[in-house]
């Protein structure tokens, strides 16, 4: 009987939390500002007192690690973050782009898999070029004969999905156990076409030179990448207005406005528009400071979710707050340097600016990567403050 009551409580809690996000995503005023902190897997492992490398290589330890975070930090979404950089398949592939350091962090060295003289090949058939040229350059174990390559690829494919499904199983179990919302988190990952071409195909250095030396080819490469990015942003089941493709935005703040207008914006806009037309909302991580592009963001489809790192929350609320859904801005550095009261005051300040009228959920300005990068007491106090005080 007691178990049944607990199950009902968890179910009711999950329904209540899910409703908070449904209301926000529907443009209605929720009962309270929902909370979605970004506590990374690295944070969770360190917080549980485990070794970073051990847990990433042994997912049997995941549940214990995630559960401690669920127990100790208030959140409406499951705070157990998916590990996007699982070391197993990267190691099997001989990855140059993601390499585990001696401390257990997955490091991302600057790499490029596409040479400037290969733009035409990429533009003609991006997926063929990825398979034949780019992957064997970035993943050294694929740079071999076809039979060996097939074996390496098969092992990495299996490892990737084994690890992914194991983690999803643990996260699902904890979502049920702790009554978290079934929506509001990250569902899928895709990229703005320019970021895709820049990040690992040409690299930061390569792309910044290319937009001056080969502007037409960069433009065409972004157009060629667009269908892949759209496909990657769609779930393998009918999309809903409560799901989302997560799109972390990288390069825009590092290029000139006229380059943004020509190279970044057109295919990024087409991506978000096309996903919306297919019924799939986008959740943007608006990395760094996009204030000079705020009017562009307004042009995106209604109810696009925008998680801001830096910028002016008042300006964002004023310009975007009636059309889009806002999160972020809370500086995690304050959680390290501020007093408990200063941290709570900051949460109050942001809620006062961003919560009126709805279309807002509470989140930090970025994922919390390490347990020692914040004062844990401050973090708990802020989450508790929002949960108890941000009612409409």
């Amino acid at each position, binding site marked *: 009987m007691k178990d049944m009551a607990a199950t009902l409580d968890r179910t009711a809690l999950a329904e209540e939390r899910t409703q908070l996000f449904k209301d926000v995503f529907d443009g209605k005023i929720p009962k309270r500002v929902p909370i979605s902190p970004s506590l990374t897997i690295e944070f969770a492992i360190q917080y549980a007192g485990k070794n970073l490398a051990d847990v990433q290589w042994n997912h049997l330890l995941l549940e214990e690690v995630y559960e401690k975070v669920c127990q100790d930090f208030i959140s409406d979404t499951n705070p157990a973050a998916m590990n996007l950089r699982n070391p197993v398949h990267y190691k099997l592939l001989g990855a140059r782009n993601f390499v585990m350091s001696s401390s257990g962090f997955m490091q991302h060295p600057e790499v490029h898999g596409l040479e400037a003289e290969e733009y035409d090949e990429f533009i003609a058939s991006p997926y063929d070029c990825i398979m034949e040229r780019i992957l064997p350059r970035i993943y050294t174990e694929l740079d071999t004969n076809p039979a060996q390559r097939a074996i390496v690829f098969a092992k990495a494919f299996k490892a990737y999905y084994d690890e992914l499904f194991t983690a999803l199983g643990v996260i699902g179990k904890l979502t049920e156990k702790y009554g978290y919302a079934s929506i509001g988190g990250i569902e899928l990952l895709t990229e703005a076409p320019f970021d895709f071409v820049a*990040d690992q195909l040409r690299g930061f250095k390569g792309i910044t030179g290319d937009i001056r030396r080969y502007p037409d080819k960069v433009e065409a490469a972004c157009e060629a990448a667009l269908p892949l990015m759209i496909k990657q942003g769609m779930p393998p089941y009918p999309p809903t207005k409560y799901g989302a493709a997560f799109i972390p935005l990288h390069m825009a703040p590092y290029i000139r406005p006229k380059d943004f207008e020509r190279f970044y914006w057109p295919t990024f806009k087409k991506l978000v528009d096309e996903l919306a037309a297919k019924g799939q909302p986008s959740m943007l991580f608006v990395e760094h400071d996009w204030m000079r592009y705020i009017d562009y963001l307004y042009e995106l489809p209604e109810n696009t979710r925008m998680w801001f790192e830096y910028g002016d929350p008042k300006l964002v609320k004023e310009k975007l707050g009636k059309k889009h859904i806002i999160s972020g801005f809370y500086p995690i550095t304050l959680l390290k340097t501020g007093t408990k009261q200063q941290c709570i005051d900051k949460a109050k300040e942001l809620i006062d600016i961003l919560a009126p009228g709805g279309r807002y959920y509470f989140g930090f300005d970025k994922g919390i990567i390490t347990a020692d990068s914040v004062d844990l007491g401050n973090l708990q106090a802020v989450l508790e403050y929002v949960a108890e005080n941000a009612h409409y």
Partner: protein
Amino acid sequence: MNTKYYRTWEEYKAEHPEIDERLEGVMVPKMQSYEEMMFGFVMMLLM
């Protein structure tokens, strides 16, 4: 997609006339899901 490394079911079926139409309904979700999983895996390798 213009590629030889990803096939829709229709493209696959055109290359395999031996497929029993009676089984097609149960084959499609299985066969295509692996195609989609491979696509997702390849893309994640560059994200």
